[in-house]
């Protein structure tokens, strides 16, 4: 199981003193945070993709990820998310492939649609076609990373004739892809269809809802024959603020919570903590809360925490990373390993994907022979043939 942090790069005033860091400083801080993530022994740094203020998450995440890759050794570098709707799949294929080479295979992607309506037309797209864009664009990306001299035609982009991505993915194995969605069953279905990962950013959602989305993905993953439901590749979000003493954590975090851009001036910190994964308290409370995710999500592969938003000072964020690295993650690694069935896979890495590829075990989109999806297709085809024969 891998642990990390994800950032949306918000430039928010610190409500306790009214100061706001510059975009330049926030960007430099982000790189410092990423290096610290590796230093304290976490596995993943993930960045959002943004095109509008007050966010300075990169418009093209490989720019940031490549910079961090050059300053780290083993840190896994991910997006959270890559906008599959408004970004040209050809550029995604090229840029992430390049970053994958630079980082020696440490790149992975979480695909997302983006929920900011005005962003779509800036890139010639329409939010009303969000799901069809995600479906078509990812299908093209999937093929670009696997086929040479591709001829392709679709609804949302100019056709391609004899196109080959350069560079081709490292060792002919594309970066691992997670599909992120909060409430669209189509995306859970998409992840299952390809045998990709499914990431639910549950930080604003009650457990009951997240559990249903994860269950849907797991069952469809099994249906498509990529493994048992319990072996599907699941990632979850989380949001924490810690001090040694839980009262100190609540006292310090409350002004940031009360004024946060997303949920400020709404629910109380206490209510929000009950209803969502937000945990403000001691490292032990964070450990207990995070371990409880397994009760409803099953054994999973990736856990990302949000720790650097709402105007929190850089010093505080780095202290949070120290606490995560020293007190939380080692215990979570140990506890999550207990009782974890041997056949539940770890989070995919480039190395594990290369082995899978060489052994001919790559997932077959839509389900290969032996899967229930395959059997259903056969049954439908023979039914159609029978009907055809009767009609003629």
């Amino acid at each position: 199981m891998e642990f990390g942090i994800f950032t949306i790069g918000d430039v928010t005033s610190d409500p306790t003193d009214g100061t706001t860091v510059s975009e330049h400083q926030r960007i430099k801080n982000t790189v410092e945070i990423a290096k610290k993530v590796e230093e304290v022994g976490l596995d993943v740094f993930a960045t959002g993709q943004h095109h509008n203020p007050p966010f300075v998450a990169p418009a093209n995440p490989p720019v940031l990820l490549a910079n961090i890759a050059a300053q780290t050794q083993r840190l896994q570098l991910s997006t959270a998310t890559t906008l599959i709707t408004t970004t040209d799949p050809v550029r995604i294929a090229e840029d992430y492939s390049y970053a994958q080479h630079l980082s020696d295979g440490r790149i992975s992607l979480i695909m997302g649609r983006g929920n900011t309506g005005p962003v779509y037309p800036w890139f010639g797209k329409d939010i009303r076609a969000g799901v069809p864009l995600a479906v078509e664009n990812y299908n093209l990306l999937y093929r670009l990373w696997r086929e040479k001299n591709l001829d392709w035609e679709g609804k949302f982009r100019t056709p391609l004739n004899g196109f080959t991505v350069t560079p081709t993915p490292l060792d002919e194995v594309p970066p691992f892809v997670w599909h992120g969605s909060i409430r669209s069953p189509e995306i859970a279905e998409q992840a299952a269809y390809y045998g990709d990962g499914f990431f639910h950013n549950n930080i604003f959602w009650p457990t009951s809802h997240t559990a249903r989305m994860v269950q849907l993905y797991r069952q469809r993953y099994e249906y498509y024959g990529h493994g048992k439901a319990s072996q599907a590749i699941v990632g979850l979000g989380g949001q924490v603020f810690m001090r040694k003493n839980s009262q100190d954590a609540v006292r310090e975090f409350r002004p940031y919570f009360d004024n946060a851009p997303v949920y400020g001036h709404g629910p109380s910190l206490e209510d929000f903590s009950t209803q969502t994964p937000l945990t403000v308290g001691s490292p032990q409370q964070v450990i207990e809360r995070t371990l409880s995710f397994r009760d409803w999500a099953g054994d999973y592969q990736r856990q990302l925490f949000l720790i650097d938003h709402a105007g929190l000072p850089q010093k505080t964020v780095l202290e949070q990373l120290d606490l995560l690295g020293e007190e939380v993650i080692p215990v979570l690694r140990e506890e999550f390993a207990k009782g974890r069935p041997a056949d539940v896979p770890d989070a995919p890495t480039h190395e594990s994907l290369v082995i899978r590829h060489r052994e001919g075990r790559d997932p077959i989109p839509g389900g290969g022979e032996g899967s229930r999806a395959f059997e259903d297709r056969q049954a439908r085809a023979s039914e159609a043939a029978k009907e055809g024969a009767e009609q003629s």
Partner: protein
Amino acid sequence: MSTTTMTIVAVTTSLSEDSTTLKLTDRILASATSAGESVGIEVNTEVINIRDLATALSDMTLTGFRSEALEAAFAAVVEADAVVSVAPVYKVAPVGLHTLFWQLIDEKALARTPVLIASTGGTPRHSLAGESVLRPMLAYLKGVVVPTTVFAATDDWGSSEGGRALSARIRQAAEEVVSLTATLIGAGKGDLAEVADPETSDAQFASGEGAGRARGAGQDGRVGRGGGIVDEFDPANVTPFAQLLEG
């Protein structure tokens, strides 16, 4: 008609304990229950008081986040066979807290669901508030709003004459909602029989195939009642990805 049951959920904004709004709710539900009994229908009733959801509604407005209690209330409305909306009128419109509930619930939450509108107010001058504000809103949610609305002003509680008129109106509206619901439940079952061919449907669900053709026909016969809402997170209802790919 053979013996059957129906569930009527009252969505009531009762701002004080023992309010006239709550009294009106109870009387409408009692009247609907007896209207059902007289034709052999067992009526189960449930009351959701929006007052209890006030903070959750304002939180959801600000953050989009639904509390569990709010989710449960929305689900109860979706699953109801019929709904009664009861709210006090403020400044010629049902109190904003009440309309907020309907503004935040899922689209089509009331599909194929008979709805009765009732309001309370200080003077009869407020009597068309339910008609002018709520009828279009509930119709937007695909509710089938019955023709008779109930309005109870202070006068109706004060005089025996007013009381008789109010009782008659309640009875009229309750009968409309019960008979329409009974009709829709009957029709719904007929639809279900058509959609779910007994020879194929069981096998299909057993195989776990998420087939588009089975959309809406849940194993437990959820169709027919609030038939516009399908549990989209049930693997049996998911649109197979091959279909999404084809566009």
